[in-house]
């Protein structure tokens, strides 16, 4: 999976893990900031679980909060946690 495909996958997982009113358009409008679209702690738990299930990597929920700010920072965290761009 290249980095673009990984990012797309994480975007899909983030929408699925939300409470239901977050769309891809809204995320794009918010520069892919999860916090700006009102991502809740319960949504983050669902997202981390689904990334761990689907991508096979452990994400530390106590990592600095900036790692969980945006789709791009979450993607970078996943890569840094052991999934390379070509994994």
């Amino acid at each position: 999976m290249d980095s673009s495909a990984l990012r797309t996958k994480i975007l899909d997982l983030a929408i699925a893990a939300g409470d239901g009113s977050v769309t891809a358009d809204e995320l794009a409008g918010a520069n892919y900031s999860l916090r700006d679209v009102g991502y809740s702690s319960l949504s983050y738990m669902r997202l981390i679980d689904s990334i761990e299930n689907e991508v096979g990597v452990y994400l530390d929920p106590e990592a600095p909060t900036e790692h969980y700010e945006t789709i791009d920072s979450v993607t970078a965290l996943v890569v840094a946690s052991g999934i390379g761009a070509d994994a």
Partner: protein
Amino acid sequence: MRAVLPDLFTDVLTRHGERLAVSDAAGSLGYAELLQRARAASDTLARHEVPGERPRVALYATNSVDYVVSYLATLFAGGVPFLVDSAFSPFDLSRIAEDCGLDLLVHAPGAEVHAIADEVHAAGGEFGVLAVSRVRPFDPPRPHLLDATEVCRFTSGSTGRPNCIEFSGAAVSAAAANWAKGTGLSADDRIACFAALSNGLAFNTSLLAAFLPGASLHLSSGLPTATRVVRLLESTEATRLVAFPALYESIVRRAPKEGFAAVRTAISSGAPLRETVREEFTRLTGVPIHNYYGVAEAGPLTYAAEGAGSGLGAPLPGVRLLATEQGIRVRSESMGSRYLNAPGVFEERVDAEGYYHTGDQGHLRDGVLHLTGRTSRLVNVGGRKIDPIEIADVLRTAPGVLDAVAFEADNQHGDPTLAAVVAVEAGVSAQSLRTHCAATLPSFKVPGILRLVDRIPANSIGKPSIERLRRLLSEPQSTSDPQSN
């Protein structure tokens, strides 16, 4: 009046001496070490004595060994700890500080407290990773604490402000003793606690309750995802797991193969646990989930010793519980005394016989409590109670908002969440409304589902129709709707 808790903690910390008392990811303390650390920190707090008053010390931090040290230090210094949910916004904190007349804040170094307080002790001293700040005085004079009050905790309140519940030392002591007795806590127990110690679930089941029999308390902060929980359970060989339903759902999603070998008891409270989650968790781990029912104002009330079925269990020792058409009413040895910052509101909920009206509805069947609903309007999202009126009021103050209604609705996962339908002028976006809410509300009060419309649907008498609002949420947002403008 002589305080109860300082002597009680001194006794149990001395009695259990070298046993392990508390740990977190950064380290651990034995009982004797905990007493020593708390005494040293209390000497520092005592230097900020308020003439003629007991210092009011807010703990505004996530779980840690240093949090427990700070709690005990406040008690040993003759102060009153105010356990403030670290998820409360800086705006909430400033209102609490003013309403309750706080003197000091114990907080993480990065916490946004600078608008109301000046740091007097940097992190790295007696309070470990936590810093201490002095709150700047507010005017008018602060409310008077009852003489018997030794701890204050908060509930969401129904006035848009968190209500501060005053607890006597006897009530805090009874809550812990009755929980330990009613659930069979022993010195052999190791409790993994994933709920915030400011919350009743953790405060009543895992703080003094753990120390009374000499058990050990293992703390975690941050999101309790399944993988993280399993790692803590394995490293501590915990026998008890204390958590909100969201954690059990996470474990079911991840389906871990290991980690639960030592766990004998899992305790869930704060929000309803879905039966499918309970069954799947037990199938995966072999561990039964025991329901616990507690009310912030009255402490722990029931415990399901059997760990099966949807019932919330039988009343704990020291609890009398009535389930009638008026809803569930309770009298307990762990009752709070009143709200410090909402005079008369608590008292209105206590009847002539001394029973507190919980706002929950349900029935007792064979002595086991079953909840069926609520008589109050509060929305329970993941264990946190939210007043939808407060949220609608905040939304109405946003630029371009014509009207707003907030209510409980199921999200796409079938979980209750806070939804809001907002009538707006052209150009207003969901993101701008979320930003507006987040400026004053804690993150858990920002609606998870937002739907923007031209006009709020109303029933025949002109009131918002919740049925039509819920139906609206299940329909796709039209491209002609304001949100898309």
